[in-house]
């Protein structure tokens, strides 16, 4: 009924005289692709990539950026039902990717992956995040490893070194606290999950994986213990007040907290504030809470760049994705943002970030999918709210876990 109503309106709109715009009738051979993304702030970097690809492979690219990822995802999903076909679009790994693959909307990129791994442009370790039912879909748009950014000057001032064990980390926090410096940052908005995922992954990564697939419950003793551990750290006064709305970049710069856990992309915040890696700030891998674990758990985040199964020009889209994974493209993409790359051949200028990328590529760490991607949207929504409540009122952790589990029960009862 909507459709016919809108069609009538289309006629009504004629009196407004169409000026500009596309409408229908897409050409079959494209020389310029559209790339829809929810990183509106990266428009400049995408434009630069478009210029480079035009020059290198004769295929240009124009970004269409969104600023609200929820709105963006709703738009992409709705576009599957319309004749608006993005040539390329960014998405999320995990359940979100599985969902649209199941609806047969995403182009198979198994061949691209096969070649890229053979050529050493992509690491085999990344493949699982892009594999559904034995086939690969999309390619990595960006990757990030999560660790601890720390204020080097504060560390030096109090004779601290990047910790290699959990005990050292807590000891460092105690030292800072005693000297009147707040050790850690956390927040009640959006990134409220960071410490939960870190403590889970460092205590029992298997439980973390089971939790994200609905095979374990948020009320299980292992999860409760993690919350108690987190509460212990909060009660010890190691965290900034979650009501502090200062931008984390400024928290770090002004020493409001000595350590902030974020993905490697947080580097951009540092460099834009004129902070120098190695002298003003540093980065270390957060040690496991449980020292008995065989490998250090590192939270890993990757955003896919996808193309549609029914793309207007499937060959061009595939060609573009293939080029995107190449060292030539990735060199530019990573360095322009000061971030790491999915391509192991790319030289990372920042020493600490280069190291973690190399180590992760060589299998030194157990990579754990970031909570944001690993958890299905309804459960994630409840959890982000829950952790937000918890950091404000740590005493409520049991209630919080029960609320998240209620949502998880509802979700997994229909999605197993």
């Amino acid at each position, binding site marked *: 009924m909507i*459709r016919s109503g809108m069609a009538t309106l*289309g006629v009504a709109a004629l009196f407004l005289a169409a000026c500009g715009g596309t409408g229908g009738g897409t050409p079959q051979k494209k020389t310029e692709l559209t790339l829809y993304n929810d990183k509106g*702030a*990266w428009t400049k970097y995408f434009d630069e990539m478009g210029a480079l690809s035009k020059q290198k492979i004769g295929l240009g690219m124009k970004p269409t950026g969104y600023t609200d990822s929820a709105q963006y995802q709703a738009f992409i999903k709705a576009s599957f039902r319309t004749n608006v076909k993005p040539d390329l679009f960014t998405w999320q790994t995990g359940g979100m990717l599985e969902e649209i693959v199941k609806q047969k909307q995403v182009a198979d990129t198994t061949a691209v992956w096969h070649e890229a791994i053979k050529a050493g442009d992509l690491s085999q370790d990344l493949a699982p995040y892009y594999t559904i039912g034995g086939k690969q879909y999309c390619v990595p748009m960006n990757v990030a490893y999560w660790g601890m950014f720390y204020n080097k000057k504060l560390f030096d001032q109090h004779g601290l070194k990047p910790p290699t064990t959990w005990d050292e980390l807590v000891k460092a926090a105690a030292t800072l606290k005693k000297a009147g410096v707040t050790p850690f940052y956390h927040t009640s908005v959006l990134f409220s999950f960071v410490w939960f995922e870190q403590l889970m992954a460092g205590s029992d990564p298997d439980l973390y994986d089971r939790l994200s697939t609905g095979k374990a419950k948020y009320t299980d003793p292992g999860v409760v213990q993690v919350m108690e551990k987190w509460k212990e750290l909060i009660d010890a006064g190691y965290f900034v007040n979650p009501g502090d709305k200062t931008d984390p970049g400024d928290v770090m710069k*002004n020493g409001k907290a000595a350590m902030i856990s974020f993905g490697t992309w947080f580097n951009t915040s540092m460099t834009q504030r004129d902070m120098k890696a190695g002298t003003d700030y540093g980065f270390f891998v957060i040690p496991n809470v449980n020292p008995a674990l065989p490998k250090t758990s590192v939270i890993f985040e990757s955003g896919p760049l996808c193309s549609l199964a029914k793309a207007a020009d499937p060959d061009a889209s595939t060609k573009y994705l293939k080029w995107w994974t190449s060292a030539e493209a990735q060199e530019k993409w990573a360095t322009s943002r000061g971030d790491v790359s999915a391509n192991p051949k790319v030289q990372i200028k920042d020493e600490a970030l280069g190291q973690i990328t190399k180590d992760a590529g060589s299998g030194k760490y157990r990579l754990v999918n970031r909570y944001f991607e690993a958890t299905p949207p309804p459960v994630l929504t409840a959890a982000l709210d829950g952790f937000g409540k918890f950091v404000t009122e740590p005493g409520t952790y049991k209630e919080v876990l029960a609320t998240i589990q209620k949502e998880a029960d509802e979700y997994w009862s229909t999605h197993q």
Partner: protein
Amino acid sequence: MIRRAVLVVLGLVWLYPTYLLLVNAARPAASYDPATAWAPSGDFALFANFAAALDKADLGSSLASTALYSVVSPLLGVVIGAMAGYTIVVLRLRHGFWWFLLIFGGTVFPSQMLLVPLFVGYSDAGLYDTRAGMLLVYTAVNVPLAAFVLRNFYSGVAFSIFEAARMDGASTFRIFWRVYLPISTSALAAVFILEFTFIWNDLLFGLTLTTTESVRPVMTALAGLMTDVYAGTPVPVGLAAGLMCSLPTVLLFLATQRLFARGLSLGSV
């Protein structure tokens, strides 16, 4: 005197956050510290911050489409809405209250929920990514407000004006165009200001219904700078971006001031 004093004191309170905005937008990007945010910085870096924001946002396309939407749609909306208000009140349309409710009802539904159905409908109707489509949706959103304000404004205008014009043999449309529109300049201007600001700052429809540079509002990239953590934008640059987006609206406020000055209003005929 007391009136002026109250206005000045209240005005100063209101200006304080504006002052913070200006001071921090003018601060060198790397020297922002929330603990001393109220103190002006010795260095004046406003233009450097403007440049940084523009550079990152890469405003390749012109401002033309955004300007087109935020001027033409309110104009259309104001005239269409005023005409509806005039018909209902002055021409005493039968069941006028219900017609009015029908039109005002357009504001009741939460706009976020319009997005997906509008997008699907637009792509079917070939309106997706067209300037006509954008003008259409913005006009529709503006009509209820204009109809409400003008309906009520006209209800306060003496009916004898209409009767006198009628005696002179003017048609109903002519009376609307030559008599009622001119006497409601201040109301029309107020509605225009509201609607211009809404469209100028809109990200909802602008993002969902367009894709090409020549159709898409320019504010997208600039807004992304301010909200996206992945962008890592320093606060002063974000504020400078916000300030830049606000400038046209502020200029409009100042330019229309005269219309709201005492004595110029013709509504008191």
